[in-house]
């Protein structure tokens, strides 16, 4: 039994890798079970994008060894551009290697855990076991979730105990500078009852082209009355075929707010789901995308209402240029019993070239009577009257277009809580739309 990799991972390889990391036996078993599932399960079926011919299983090597950073001053200049040296709560993964981490003494004393996923498995096994692919993402959903568990070679674990309010944002950087590396990352963020945290992650490639692939799963849990703000800026390199699944689960009175800047240069399948399980829970997803070159992407954003009085908002803005194509599926789903829920979504796509393609598909699935729901979707060019207005003040056409595009993508830029990351996203947008 093997997975089709260039290096042919076998069941024995998975077992050895797990043992080498000193993982608890339950996790080794979970990997092996998932490895078996991966052999037979089909690929996911993102609506309106055919991915059967995409390579999600062949990659050069399973893990690469990269350097660690002894102190924050030793970080590369690239990383320093997005990390504030004052950043108190920081974890950096260098390709597949846990390379740097620190948590303020104050938070550590309160029981906050921020670490790489392997250390979490060794030192906080019971906590990880409670959340790892139990009621967030399941291993047997499809081939890629199974592979994520079986081949996991990186990721982070953030746990905020009951009643702890983390004021400063927690930052995690997945730094990718080895073209041969692949990422099977698994991130778990837990905000326990009545706690509050802001988590910001960067998938950050500095190589121009990647030969590996990325299979990323994030599971995010906001327990009763907890609040999580989850920011992300993805800038993975061209060639790095990416499956990224970010899924949240909000309990009673809990809030999960996402701000996702999805700026990969690679073909990407993104799924972002928020399950509003508890009564009076709240989910807000804001995502912005720029597609360029001949990139193919699919962004499925979903908010599922189970709890009564739950509120879900989806905002997606995409800019497409060159011959890039992208599908934007927005799904607001209200389950039976989720009375007085409110599901609202807006998808807008701005086309900058004749050959670019962008489709916005708003979907409302409602199985309850006493609810409110709304959607808006549009695909179009930069409004010539907006350009006329800006130009009538002396602003050049190029600058006017730049202003309109940045304005269009501002909803995510504006809410990112870390200045360096905000600046990075602005610069990436600048570079990509030019």
């Amino acid at each position, binding site marked *: 039994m093997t997975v089709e990799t260039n290096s042919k991972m076998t069941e024995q390889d998975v077992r050895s890798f797990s043992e080498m990391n000193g993982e608890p036996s339950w996790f080794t078993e979970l990997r092996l079970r998932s490895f078996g599932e991966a052999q037979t399960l089909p690929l996911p079926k993102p609506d309106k994008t055919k991915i059967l011919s995409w390579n999600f299983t062949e990659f050069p090597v399973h893990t690469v060894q990269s350097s660690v950073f002894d102190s924050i001053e030793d970080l590369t200049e690239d990383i320093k551009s997005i990390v504030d040296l004052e950043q108190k709560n920081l974890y950096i993964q260098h390709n597949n290697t846990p390379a740097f981490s620190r948590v303020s003494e104050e938070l550590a004393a309160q029981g906050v855990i921020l670490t790489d996923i392997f250390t979490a498995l060794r030192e906080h096994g019971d906590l990880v076991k409670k959340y790892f692919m139990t009621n967030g993402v399941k291993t047997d959903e499809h081939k890629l979730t199974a592979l994520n568990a079986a081949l996991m070679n990186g990721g982070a674990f953030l746990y905020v105990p009951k009643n702890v309010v983390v004021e400063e944002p927690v930052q995690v950087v997945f730094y990718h500078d080895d073209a041969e590396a692949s990422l099977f990352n698994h991130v778990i963020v837990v905000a326990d009852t009545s706690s509050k945290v802001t988590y910001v992650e960067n998938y950050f490639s500095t190589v121009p082209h990647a030969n590996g692939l990325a299979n990323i799963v994030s599971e995010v849990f906001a327990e009763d009355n907890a609040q999580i703000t989850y920011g992300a800026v993805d800038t993975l390199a061209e060639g790095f075929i990416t499956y990224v699944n970010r899924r949240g689960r909000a309990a009673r009175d809990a809030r999960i707010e996402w701000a996702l800047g999805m700026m990969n240069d690679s073909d990407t399948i993104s799924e972002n789901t928020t399950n509003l399980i508890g009564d009076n829970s709240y989910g807000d997803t804001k995502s912005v995308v720029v597609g360029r070159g001949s990139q193919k992407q699919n962004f499925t954003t979903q908010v599922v209402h189970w709890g009564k009085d739950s509120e879900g908002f989806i905002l997606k803005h995409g800019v497409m240029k060159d011959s890039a194509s992208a599908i934007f599926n927005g799904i607001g789903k209200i389950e039976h019993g989720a009375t007085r829920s409110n599901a609202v979504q807006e998808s807008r796509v701005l086309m900058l070239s004749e050959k670019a393609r962008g489709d916005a598909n708003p979907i409302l699935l409602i199985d309850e009577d006493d609810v409110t729901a709304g959607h808006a979707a549009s695909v179009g060019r930069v409004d010539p009257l907006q350009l006329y207005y800006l130009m009538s*003040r002396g602003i050049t056409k190029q600058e006017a277009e730049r202003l309109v595009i940045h304005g269009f993508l501002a909803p995510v830029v504006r809410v990112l809580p870390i200045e360096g990351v905000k600046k990075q996203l602005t610069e990436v947008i600048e570079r990509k739309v030019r």
Partner: protein
Amino acid sequence: MSTLVIKDLHVKIEDKEILKGVDLTINTGEIHAIMGPNGTGKSTLASAIMGHPKYEVTQGSITLDGEDVLEMEVDERARAGLFLGMQYPSEISGVTNADFMRSAMNARREEGDEISLMKFIRELDKKMEVLDMEQEMAQRYLNEGFSGGEKKRNEILQLMMIQPKIAILDEIDSGLDIDALKVVSEGINQMRSENFGCLIITHYQRLLNYITPDHVHVMMQGRVVKSGGEELSHKLESEGYDWIKVELGIEDETVGQA
């Protein structure tokens, strides 16, 4: 001194000719008012001068200090010294009013000579105070969710920040209550100088109670049919337009006719 000269201007929109030979000369130091009933081509004249993409000039010329305005792109016209206060300004989400105005001011300056942030904020604060605008308006997205009156004030704010040579104000008074009208007029009056010329388009005389024009023109059927001094606006106020129609033998003043 700068001079905007419009000669025999013919303009069409979607194959319909709206302007049928407009002649007008505006010098800096002068305030002109164009009056006239609805549908006579006043706003088309404003849009054509600025270069609105939907309007096509089929005949005639517009020059600013001898330079051919019709050969210029919209942004070049603005940088040459023209300004249009629009009747329906666009809303632009995600771009703050302040950022937009700074971009507009810097567009007139050389790279490396951009206006300093402090100086910009001082200027903006001062002018917003004249226009009785809340400070937070600067950080709101450009015209997004602005009331009709707020949009008009914001147009005048831009006028005051940009300081053009010649401004065209297209029905800047419509939808304003009397207090807002006074405030907006105060802003325009502050602009009055030897270096500033203005063309005010309105179909109500009341704005001209606050801004005294040097020249008043009446448009009908896509042409300027009568010009005079300030007294002409008072006559229009008291007697309406019918006497002009009688005098010139016009039955229907709108552009579809004649």
